[in-house]
């Protein structure tokens, strides 16, 4: 079991490294180096950067040196907690991102939880009552969920909310609590605003998970151990919940690793449409104004968050499947 977790952790470290490379590439992509853009930006604001300052900045970021040296210097700064400086906001990147990163995590995790809470019972129902009206309905809704891109869904819901109820369904906080310090009232406000973004983000995942759960469970329901359980005289719900559902959970749980990146990806665009105070709108703004340290940092942090989430789900998987637990003992 430890070997398994060790392998997953190693892969996670590799993944983080790959993400850091990609984020670095994104920072490097725009023409011109960071300091020249910085000087130009400052000049347009009317302040002058002295040659000495420019020289210091160049040394700090290792500009002019080979690319791997620059990468190394960037990594070293990140290790010290310095993610660079946002030109657009003229503040350190960490300050700009602030609580947005955590709100992104909250939105993604609640979408994931909602996916599970919805997909599990619906999937079980669909499999046990195969070809029933409920099953067909679930399949149909599932196809809609897969076919409608979540940002379009957000757009439609926003429009309906606006025209039918004259209510703005976007955002994560009521206006009066938008910039308030954290308090119980603000947390409650957040919880009230969460369901709609969570539903929009989770719908495609839910649809997919229902299909997976249904297919797995249909496979498991045909297995002999189900007949054994039935022949003992167990009641039907107990037979199904204790045995085949338990088995079908494993492949179901292993898809969590692919669902999370998908949800995080989706949250970027959906946040834009719904105006959620996550890193999504910030990333788009940074990319459009070529504020590359901010953009690169957001990509890196999102990636790391996702990898950590996936790793946690892997460990949960080991915990529920004794076959993996016993694999290396």
């Amino acid at each position, binding site marked *: 079991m430890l070997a398994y977790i060790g392998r997953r952790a190693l*892969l996670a470290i*590799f*993944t983080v490294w*790959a*993400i850091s490379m*990609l*984020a670095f590439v*994104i920072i490097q*992509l*725009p*023409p011109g180096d960071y300091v020249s853009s910085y000087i130009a930006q400052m000049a347009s604001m009317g302040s002058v950067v002295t040659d000495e300052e420019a020289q210091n900045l160049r040394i700090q970021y290792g500009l002019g040196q080979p690319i791997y040296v620059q990468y190394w210097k960037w990594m070293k700064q990140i290790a010290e907690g310095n993610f660079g400086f946002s030109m657009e906001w003229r503040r350190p990147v960490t300050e700009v991102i602030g609580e947005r990163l955590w709100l992104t995590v909250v939105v993604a995790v609640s979408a994931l939880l909602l996916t599970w809470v919805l997909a599990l019972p619906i999937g079980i129902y669909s499999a046990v009552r195969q070809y029933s009206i409920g099953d067909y309905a679930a399949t149909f809704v599932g*196809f*809609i969920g*897969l*076919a*409608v*891109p979540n*940002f*379009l869904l957000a*757009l*439609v819901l*926003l*429009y309906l909310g*606006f*025209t039918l109820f004259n209510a*703005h369904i*976007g955002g994560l906080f009521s206006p009066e609590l938008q910039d308030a310090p954290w308090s119980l009232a603000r947390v409650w406000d957040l919880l009230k605003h969460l369901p709609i973004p969570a539903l929009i983000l989770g719908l495609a995942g839910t649809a997919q998970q229902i299909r997976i759960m249904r297919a797995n469970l249909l496979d498991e329901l045909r297995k002999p151990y189900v007949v054994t359980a039935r022949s003992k005289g167990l009641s039907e719900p107990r037979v199904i919940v204790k045995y085949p559902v338990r088995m079908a959970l494993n492949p179901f749980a292993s898809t969590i*690793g*692919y669902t999370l*990146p*998908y949800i*995080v*990806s*989706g949250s*970027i*665009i959906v946040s*834009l*449409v719904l105006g959620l105070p996550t890193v999504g709108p910030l*990333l*788009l703004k940074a*990319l*459009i104004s*070529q504020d590359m340290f901010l*953009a*690169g940092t*957001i*990509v890196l942090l*999102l*990636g790391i968050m*996702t*990898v950590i989430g*996936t790793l946690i789900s892997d460990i949960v998987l080991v915990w529920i499947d004794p076959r993996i637990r016993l694999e290396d003992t």
Partner: protein
Amino acid sequence: MALAADAGRVPSVSTTDQQRIFVASQWQLMWWRFRKHRVAVASAVVVAGFYLAVLGAEFLAYSDPNASEAQRSLMPPQPIHWFDDGRFRPHVYGLKGARDPKTFKRVYQADPRQKIPVRFFAQGFEYRFLGLIPMSRHLIGVDPARDAAGTIFLLGTDVQGRDLWSRLMYGTRISLTIGLLGVTASLVLGVVLGGLSGFYGGVTDTVIQRIIEILRSIPTIPLWMGLAAALPRDWSIVQVYFAITVIISLLGWTELARVIRGRFLALREEDFVVSARLVGCSQMRTIFVHMVPSFMSHIIAATTLALPAMIISETALSFLGLGLRPPAISWGVLLQQAQNVQTVAISPWLMIPAVPVIIAVMAFNFLGDGLRDAADPYGR
């Protein structure tokens, strides 16, 4: 001491059926199975319709998609009235524009007295059909010579007063071809890497599998957003088009590689592959003559299933303003105008481009599902 039964003749009832199945080619079997899948067949028709629209976008459009006029900003759709006094005489009502004295916005009122006849195969702007044949006929249109003030906007106009229907036809062309090209690029990557992985196994397999695993555990959209944002601003439409194709194809190849690897692994141990190798077929011959044909159908199915993701990615990137940029027209570019909920609330027709996105994605999904089921001709 088990029973020695089941010897002798095949039961007469199913002989013809079985013989038909024995001699049928793989593609015939696939077709028979596919035909049973009603929804998939209907989806195939829808998909074919979409690609016909791609070919004949200019013919289906009736006005220049880039012709803008401030006077016609945000005109509502003009539905076609097919009958006039019980006779078949398709027409639309003329629209009268006026400025709202309070908000200074242009508002339009349909005028049932002004009936503008809709003509079929009408004269319009000149174009080259399929890029070759010069033509100026369009499926529908109004005759500018006879109805000087006559305009037709089936789906209304956008902020710049451009006809949404015509723009949608051109957008369909770009969105669907970009998906097709993207999936082709993905397919090349997927076949090469999945094939290497499945055929050689061992270290190659491990390395490629880890790469796929890493790529799949990264949230891709922010990454592709970063890449797309870095495209130089001064690139031409064509350059951006191909760059976006490459970027979205980087999204799709992992799933295709996974499918192909799976097929390779399954086939590698099959008797006919082993015997091909034993009789001395070269590796290339074994792969391309013996293995690839037997999972061609799976590749086609997987490719069809990968297409919707491509279409959604392009739409999403363009919607964010990071993908194709005007004056290029794609579904995503068209939807950009629907970003602001206040605008949409006043002019809901701006959301219409979402409809073909959803229909196309659904049709490709159903078609792919049907193909995937049919690809296993001996299964169930």
